């Protein structure tokens, strides 16, 4: 089975207080030099059958309608770590 990864990130203009909270904690823990952190979601899909164009189109539709809310989030679809 092939693995397809869907990464979902808040759009750049949307405030990400979770990422900010992580960023603010870093110096306290001794990790300096990180100017900004944004937090996203990663979905790993184990796909039955071949990951052909049709399968990728279905996954793209799935990401667009369900995994991401495109009002506030962007997403990318990758197969085995290779950008599509």
């Amino acid at each position, binding site marked *: 089975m092939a693995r397809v990864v869907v990464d979902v990130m808040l759009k750049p*203009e*949307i*405030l990400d*207080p979770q990422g900010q909270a992580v960023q603010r904690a870093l110096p306290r823990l001794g990790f300096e030099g990180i100017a900004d952190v944004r937090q996203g979601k990663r979905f790993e899909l184990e796909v039955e059958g071949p990951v052909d164009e049709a399968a990728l189109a279905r996954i793209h539709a799935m990401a667009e309608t*369900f995994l991401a*809310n495109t*009002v*506030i989030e962007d997403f990318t679809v990758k197969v085995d770590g290779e950008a599509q």
Partner: protein
Amino acid sequence: MTARVGVITFPGTLDDRDTQRAVRIAGLEPVPLWHRDKDLKQVDAVVLPGGFSYGDYLRAGAISRFSPVMETVIEQAKGGMPVLGICNGFQVLTETHLLPGAMLRNNHLHFICREQKLRVENAGTAWTSDYEAGQEISIPLKNIDGRYVADEHTLDELEAEGRVAFRYLDGNPNGSLRDIAGITNAAGNVVGLMPHPEHAVEPLVGTGRTDGLGFFTSILKKLVNA
């Protein structure tokens, strides 16, 4: 005949009983609906109550949006049926795109529970006609995903069309853009807000105020006069 108001229960809904009670107190007949019901049992209006439908997994309201009952609600709302979404119900309505924008984690990341002052900005919707424009009311607020966001163009459009139905007063509790607490669709039949009118309908419980009752008496008038 009494008008029938459906109150939907999803797995994880908390405020369905309070909402049914508010509907009853206003003089309407509450009709419990289950998330798997495709048939709305001939109700005249629907309320999506607060809670954490489907555990709010993925995003608040995202999974409920695809439930069988919502397929019918979306279709009928587009046809003019009055729909009110309270808190999680508001989140569901943005996920369905019946209302624009989206709801995100509060800017301070904390769950908040308090009495919240609001200004009724639009008293022309199906659910707000018993209020007056500019009226200030106080009802409970309790959520962690209450931050309303939309792009600038959408916000300007909402303001220009008078579709910001409620605004927070005395401090913005969650970072919602332009202090927006609730909005309506263009037709005025679909309304969503984060605070909970159904918890403020009896003087003996909750905040001791009945400022929320107007939502349910508004819809009563609307349905009886229809």
